[in-house]
């Protein structure tokens, strides 16, 4: 049950990664940095402008999304034609810069973000106590994941996006502005990461290192789900959260490697991932 909360974060983050990889073919190593930026945007919005949690939930992803679009236009679009490795190195570099700047400004220990008043308290379920905020995280992430899946798989916008992956030149010939589309995709993907950051802010300490510790696990989740598979990343995100939760009870020392053990097994048995389409 508790694992679901962690799983919800994994699902949200791996969703953004899967969208970016699936539609653009870019391995976005800066994803953790955008998650951190989302949390910091919420924190600074609160401290400097008095933006409350609900406002931050909308504004922080928006701000980070815009930043994502700018970065895509400035840097990322130049590497599409090159090996995927270049995109990876570029985004990795960007994430180091972002992390370094945040550390310079705020120190490595970070700050606390209060739980919003409306979601204070806990429900006693008899066998365990569930803080209301955590229940909200699970709910919110399921809705967002479902919504994203719907947009990409079932709407006209989504099919255009997928068409751009299949054959960008042909789509451009039909009069669709493909560069704009990919910028928007990247912006949307990192906005998802920022949203996860805002959701996480009240649960953990907001620090420049928060994304760093999460992003490797999230990459493993994406690999297990199948690179670029949206449904796969959501399902495996939630499942792995639960598996990790169980490990914490049965054999706590192994709880931070269990995801990687599963990743190794999946790569051996089904190299394309559980939901991979290859």
């Amino acid at each position, binding site marked *: 049950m*508790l*694992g679901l*909360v*962690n799983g919800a*974060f994994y699902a949200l983050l791996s969703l953004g990664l899967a969208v970016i990889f699936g539609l653009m073919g870019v*391995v976005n*190593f800066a994803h953790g940095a955008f998650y951190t930026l989302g949390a910091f945007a919420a924190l600074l919005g609160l401290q400097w402008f008095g933006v409350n949690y609900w406002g931050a939930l909308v504004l922080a992803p928006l701000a980070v999304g815009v930043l994502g679009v700018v970065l895509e236009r400035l840097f990322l679009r130049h590497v599409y034609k090159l090996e*995927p*490795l270049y995109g*990876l*190195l570029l985004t*990795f570099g960007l994430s180091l810069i972002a992390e370094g700047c945040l*550390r310079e400004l705020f*120190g*490595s*220990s*970070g*700050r*606390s973000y*209060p*739980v919003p008043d409306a979601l204070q308290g*806990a429900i006693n379920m008899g066998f*365990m*106590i569930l*803080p209301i*905020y*955590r229940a909200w995280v699970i709910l919110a992430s399921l809705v967002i994941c479902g919504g994203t899946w719907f947009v990409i798989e079932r709407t006209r916008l989504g099919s255009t996006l997928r068409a751009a992956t299949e054959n960008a030149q042909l789509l451009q010939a039909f009069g669709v502005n493909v560069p704009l589309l990919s910028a928007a995709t990247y912006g949307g993907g990192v906005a998802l990461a920022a949203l996860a950051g805002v959701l996480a802010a009240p*649960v*953990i*300490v907001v*620090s420049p*290192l928060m994304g760093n*510790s*999460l992003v490797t*696990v999230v*990459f493993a989740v994406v*690999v297990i789900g199948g*690179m670029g598979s949206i449904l796969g990343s959501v399902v495996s995100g939630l499942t792995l959260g639960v598996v990790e*939760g169980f490990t*914490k*009870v049965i054999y*706590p*020392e192994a*709880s*931070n*490697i269990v995801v990687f053990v599963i990743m190794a097994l999946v*790569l051996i048995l089904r*190299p*394309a*991932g559980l939901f*991979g389409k*290859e």
Partner: protein
Amino acid sequence: MKGRKWAIRLAAALAALAGGDAAFAAGGEIVIGDIDDLSGTYADAQGVGGIEAIKMAIADFGGAVLGKKIVLLTADHQNKPDVGASKFREWSDQSGLNMLIGGSNTGVNIAMAKVAAAKKVPLFVIGAGGASLTNEDCTAYTVHYVYDTTALANGTASTIVKSGGKTWFYLTADYAFGSQLQNAASKVVEANGGKNLGAVRAPLASMDFSSFLLQAQGSGAAVLGLANAGADFSNSLKAANEFGITKTMKPAALLAFISDIHRLGLQTAQGLYLTTGWYWDLNEDTRAFAKRYFAKMQVEPTMDHAGAYSATLSYLTVVKAVGSTDPDKVMAELKKMKINDMFAKGGYVRADGVMVHTMYVMQVKSPQESKYPWDYYKVVKQMAGEEAFGPVTGACALAPK
């Protein structure tokens, strides 16, 4: 196919994780080094602030000793023992290093102590807490300056057991420091008539502590001993509050720095007991240092920052008194002198390398009790150095029982 590509990408990313800085010093200088976590979870306990404190000490000493200029080298050990040890070795061999300030992370400092013994370079351990540094892992050149796991346990654990918290369950960071801290606390709890009900070992830098905490709650213990540090400590305490565990169990911080309390906020941290070697608001001297430090760093100094300042000053004072940087002469003189500055009053370095000085058991104030910024602690108990650090154990060959 994609899986294989992915592996290549990961390898490339890992290869990018390397760094370091070159440093040179001519023979006519006194070279002080500082190897610490400058970028990771412990970077705020000492880190960059520690470098600033060392610089302040060098400047206060006049920037030179024995007619030679004092230079400072710094490096980030990234919490990797091999990185710390090889940097130390490199500086000793190539840069004429005279003394090293060892930062946070017990694992790294154990590795560096071995280099200190081999190269005969005095090592002043500041941020790391593992008491093994002056026991099994002791060397003739190691000084453990600020605090150790024994003193933390003697302070926090005994205070809580005596005030009625008899049954303990530990949330322990799964590495050298965590288990040493848990062991030390367990012994103190038992010695004072309390009982240890169990422990859960959480991997370092876990994302979520709630599952671990529910196990602690299930134990029925009265006290939740947090044998962890830095972000792990803050995140676990935060989650304990969220799950209402702090209503049924009393949390005990076995190691907390003022930077941790600052980030948690008094609302979450209030009522917490902790042990510290120094607090900025103890007296005129500490406030004077804190004021100068604050002007540079915009935060109040931790005990590590004050300790790094004091250790640098002590070393330079000894060098001046001896008239040489000869490591054996320096260590002999250091173990004879009394340390009197804003950090310690009547402190002294024992044969096994422990710097014995007063420790303070603190309780975190509630938001109502706090009158001005950074007014966080009230002194519960002042522990004489001998009580805090305990008797010589005999585990270190330099100091038989």
